[in-house]
């Protein structure tokens, strides 16, 4: 087996970038560090297919201690990436979890070494459908194998091995990141000291599969999608992906938040225009969400990742009994949900808690009062942040991580 190659960050990719296509170059040579596992060390996928070579792009924050005992893995959500606490190279925006990660913050980088990889199937430097297929020299497109949440975790295990870390102090993630957290604890029982699955679920519900299918059909209905081979034609299925994002975005909010933030207010006009312009503020907001998303995300990645989420069912994967997923676990869990999250509601988190109780696992469970819907895990929620800080601090003190 060949050894993985680490490619250092900070190389000047700018000059190689075609005009207006910063995203494409992040796929092939990301701004973050990337480790490449070579052709002769393929990743065996749940579908039975082998994937090689495998690139995992990742960011780190803080310093790994000498005992390598202070590492926290951050698992990102569907449209997240490795830039959890650093500036996004395409949008120039701050990291998506800067509220939580940083010096003195709840996930304190003065104390912990934080690793955030781009998931398998992503489009920010880890291997995904936009990456080059070594057999054709062209982007995979639909030749990319269908992947699962478990496959994403197995790919992350490679990275953690590469970094020489035996046991992660914690694995933390929201939404699909929370699904990865659960897979980590189920698959790597001796390697996860603490785990924080946030706004997650042990399986994807029919409603959630339904929303994803709407998004995928929107992408596929765009003539520029070209059966997934749009890269070669110099086009992007912008309209389809944008509609997918608009629909999905509604599911991340709560009705109360939508009503409070937008109501029936009109956008930059005094009266209805009697047209199909974005008269309402909410329309304008969704259109903006859709159009900015296509600038930073790959349409095929969206298809593959939503599919992986649909396939997620930790209960079915463990003989129809969710508790079996956690048999023999030594991990200390802190499960978090939000009251107004109707996409991954509290009852889904309670199913996780009940399964953990059934195997007498060490578990805390907190439901945070919030009107921000599913997106609450990304937003300003002081109670949530205090919970993460308190849980991690107490566990760190117990384990002698000063």
């Amino acid at each position, binding site marked *: 087996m060949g050894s993985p190659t680490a490619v250092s960050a900070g190389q000047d990719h700018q000059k190689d970038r075609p005009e207006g296509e910063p995203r494409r170059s992040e796929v092939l040579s990301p701004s973050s560090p990337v480790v490449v596992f070579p052709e002769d060390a393929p990743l065996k996928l749940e579908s039975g297919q082998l994937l090689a070579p495998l690139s995992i792009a990742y960011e780190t924050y803080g310093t790994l201690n000498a005992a390598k005992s202070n590492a926290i893995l951050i698992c990102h959500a569907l449209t997240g990436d490795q830039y959890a606490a650093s500036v996004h190279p395409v949008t120039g925006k701050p990291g998506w979890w800067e509220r939580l990660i940083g010096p003195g913050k709840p996930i304190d980088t003065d*104390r912990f070494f934080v690793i955030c990889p781009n998931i398998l199937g992503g489009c920010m430097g880890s291997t995904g459908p936009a990456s080059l297929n070594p057999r054709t020299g062209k982007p995979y497109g639909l030749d990319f194998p269908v992947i699962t949440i478990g496959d994403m975790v197995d790919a992350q295990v490679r990275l953690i091995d590469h970094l020489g870390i035996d046991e992660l102090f914690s694995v933390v993630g929201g939404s699909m990141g929370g699904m990865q957290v659960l897979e980590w604890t189920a698959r790597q029982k001796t390697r996860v000291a603490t785990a924080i699955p946030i706004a997650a679920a042990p399986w994807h519900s029919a409603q959630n599969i339904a929303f994803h299918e709407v998004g995928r059909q929107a992408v596929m209905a765009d003539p520029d999608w070209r059966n997934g081979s749009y890269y070669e034609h110099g086009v992007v299925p912008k309209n389809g992906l944008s509609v997918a994002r608009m629909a999905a975005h509604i599911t991340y909010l709560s009705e109360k938040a939508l009503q409070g933030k937008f109501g029936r207010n009109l956008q930059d006009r005094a009266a209805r225009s009697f047209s199909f312009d974005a008269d309402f503020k909410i329309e304008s907001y969704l259109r903006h969400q859709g159009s900015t998303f296509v600038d930073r995300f790959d349409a095929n990645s969206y298809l593959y990742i939503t599919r992986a989420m649909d396939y997620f069912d930790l209960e079915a994967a463990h003989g129809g009994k969710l508790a079996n997923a956690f048999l023999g676990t030594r991990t*200390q869990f*802190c*499960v978090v949900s939000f009251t107004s999250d109707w996409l991954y509601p509290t009852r889904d988190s309670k199913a996780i*808690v*009940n399964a953990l*109780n*059934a*195997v*007498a696992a*060490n*578990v*805390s*469970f*907190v*439901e*945070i*009062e919030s009107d921000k819907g599913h997106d609450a895990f990304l937003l300003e929620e002081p*109670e949530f942040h*205090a*919970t993460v*800080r*308190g*849980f991690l*601090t*107490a*566990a760190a*003190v*117990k384990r002698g991580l*000063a």
Partner: protein
Amino acid sequence: MQKAVPFTGEQRADHLLSAEMVAPGSRVLDVGCGDGALLKLLAETKGVDGRGVELSREKVNMCVKSGLSVIQGDADRDLADYPDQAFDYAVLSLTIQATRDPKTVLENLLRIGRFAIVSFPNFGHWRVRAALLLTGRMPVTPNLPEPWYATADAHLCTIKDFVDLVSLVDAEVEAAVAFNSKGQRRPSKNSLSLQNLLGEKAVFKLKRRT
């Protein structure tokens, strides 16, 4: 650096008496753990590996923030999910009278823990008896301060009633202490009738009959 906050407040008498019944280094489930005072007391004085269940979201968040393992849940609904003998002790402090189904709750405690430690206000205390006898109204005493329409205590019982329930669920009393609001034991001699008359509250350590 933020440390887990040690418990510094006044200790509740029932907590101190319950803690006396717990062996050092054991595993304890505290059902209705409130702000986690007993769990902290047990961790600090007995090195106990403790877990809690608490109904109030606010109190659960307080516990987790301070480093305790506590889940939001309900004694009536959520105990069924715990496996048999998962803990050395299952503790229920001054809560059984407020559950919907005290018998099932007690059976669950005895199933989950090798021992159950249960404390409750004693409706057989002389002041309660006197209040009912003399006023002809539901007793309102320092120990039971809420009027009948506002209290959450749907299933109040006397010490003798509780002992009957213990036999009904096929358990036996390992230790029993009746005490007043200051935590003083009443009476020191082990007479059930005197305990029932003079104890404002009681703590029982129970185990299943084998």
